[in-house]
């Protein structure tokens, strides 16, 4: 068997056949989890829209007869409120399409995302204490070792090269200051 899409005589350009021949693009099946996730998203958008509308009204739709700072937020908030409800209803009715991008992460994927998020949070905290070059080196080391599962030595070399290299490039080369350490002994060695 060979696949050769037909060109109908009625649509010599071939464009017409694209319309008729494949009317039902393949999606992932809509699971209960996906439906619930959409319902939650719809509910959150509704809440956000409601909050924004209330905030807009409190800011004032008009000031001295001209449109005030609350007019636009009220319009946008109302739109979000209506769309949130629409999404919730569509999700509840199961009228959803689901692309391949929405595949649920596997166990290893969840682990990597959690490690990345935690490492980034720690990095933000460490940045204020030990300064950019050390914090970034440790951060890249953590990502390479625990997310990328590379060897310690290899990870350490890449991390130090990136951490100190980017610090030198931006701080010294481009003149963009990066955070220094708050600890006196690190400050004393130029970090």
């Amino acid at each position: 068997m060979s696949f050769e899409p037909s060109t109908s005589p009625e649509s010599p350009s071939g464009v017409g056949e694209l319309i008729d021949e494949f009317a039902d693009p393949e999606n992932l099946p809509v699971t209960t989890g996906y439906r619930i996730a959409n319902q939650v998203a719809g509910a959150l958008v509704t809440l956000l829209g409601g909050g924004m509308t209330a905030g807009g009204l409190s800011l004032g739709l008009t000031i001295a007869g001209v449109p005030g700072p609350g007019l636009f937020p009220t319009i946008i908030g109302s739109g979000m409120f209506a769309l949130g409800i629409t999404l919730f209803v569509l999700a509840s009715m199961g009228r959803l399409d689901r692309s391949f991008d929405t595949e649920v992460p596997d166990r290893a994927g969840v682990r990597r995302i959690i490690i990345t998020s935690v490492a980034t949070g720690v990095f933000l905290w460490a940045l204020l204490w030990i300064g950019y070059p050390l914090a970034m080196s440790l951060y890249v080391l953590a990502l390479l070792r625990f997310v990328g599962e590379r060897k310690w030595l290899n990870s350490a070399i890449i991390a130090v090269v990136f951490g100190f290299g980017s610090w030198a490039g931006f701080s010294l080369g481009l003149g963009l200051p990066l955070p220094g350490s708050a600890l006196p002994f690190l400050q004393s060695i130029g970090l």
Partner: protein
Amino acid sequence: MDTFGQLMAGFSAVLSWENLLLAFIGCVLGMLVGILPGFGPAAAVAILLPVTFALGPVPAIIMLAAILYGASYGGTITAVLLNVPGETSSVATTIDGYQMAKRGRAGAALTIAAIGSFVGCIVGLIGFVVAAPLSRFALAFGPTEFFALTILGLSLVIGLAGKSIVKALISALFGLAIGMVGLDPLTGVPRFTFDQAPLLDGINFIAVVMGLFGVSELLATVDHSSKFGRALPVGKIWPTRTDFRRSVGPILRGAPLGFFFGLLPGSPGAATSFASYAIEKAVSKRKSEFGKGAIEGVAGPETANNSLAIAGMIPLFTLGVPTSATTAILMGAFIVNGLLPGPLLFQNNPDIAWTIIASMFVGNVILLILNIPLVRVWVAFLKTPFPVLFAVVFGFMILGAYTLDGSVFNIGVLLIFGVLGYLMRKIDIPLAPMALTIVLGDLMESNLRRALAISRGDAAVFIESPISLTLLIIAAVAIVASIVGRQLGQRAAARKLLAERADTAVAEEKA
């Protein structure tokens, strides 16, 4: 000075060794990020934006434009060698490009794609030069007309919609909502700042798009344990004489096709390249080769999508309205560098505008020169272990977010929007409308309020102005056209899926 004279002045400004070097570096960096599987031009520009901060406005935009087309070509490399398109407009290229690669003809496919891309860009740029003076008409615009223009921009959201228009509109309104955080532009009243001082200046657009497109892409890439496929060998680089002969027609047809599609607001790249593919197949004498490695199937779509990318910049430069996520990010870059794209750019800074346009010609020549001999180098980069790229790109984005204004707050914004973008992907809420409306929001609101203030609250002002009325009608037409284009794109994608299935079935039957 006339248009040609201004363009020549632009060329003389851009042909300094500093600008040429920046265009060269931009092409290389864009290409390096563009060949990361899944990273399109929008992500590449967002990620590499911080590199340009210390350069000044003109060199920064020259470099970013080079990053943009470098990344576009990077996406073509992965489409041909890995069957992984860097952006939706490269999907059509995977059909025959990957088949050519499987037959050891990746080099020929990539070279023809490079030549087609070059021709597409040059045709797009010539159209750009012709269209640029039209920006003078926009000088007659007042708040009413500008508001209608932003509505036209908002109508593009339909073109950027993924599976659901409702979700695209949610994304768009969310972008407008984010743009409202901070001090009200007209009265100075704090809005939605929750008494947090860093929010008074608003949420930094660049940090938001870096998170939405960069961080979320990285998270999506590592959320499965499966690995990317191995790149196929490049084979002989230079195409045969027959390849060239067969590619001339598709390139010449693809360039104007892409340009005119690009002028239509909200034209999705995928629909354009598939339209080119369908036309090439329809006019070809070798229809049976399509889907099995026909060079016309690479030449036409690649030319069309690059011509479209350049044409898509015309509304940004002449009217100040971005038409895609990538041009929205580029507009952010203009603003960060103290420039406002639109009619006033040509009025107040014609030297800057024409230097940037001239740099695009030069950048594309550099890209063509780089592409063909260095194809094997780019392919070697594909062999860099992904964990290393992941860690380094992540680190680089954090660094970039910090350097936006020397604030750790922006790193937080980057991460929050990265996670948000990841979650939005997981429920099929498209990211591009949000990027577009964050940029448009301020323009839309301030013009709406000014127009209503002038008309003393009478909303009829928007249909009483002929220009405004025309723009609103065009917006309505654009919405209808986008919906039709979207349907075409979806069906064309389905066609590819069926073709792949049929190929698999053939292979299994033969086995």
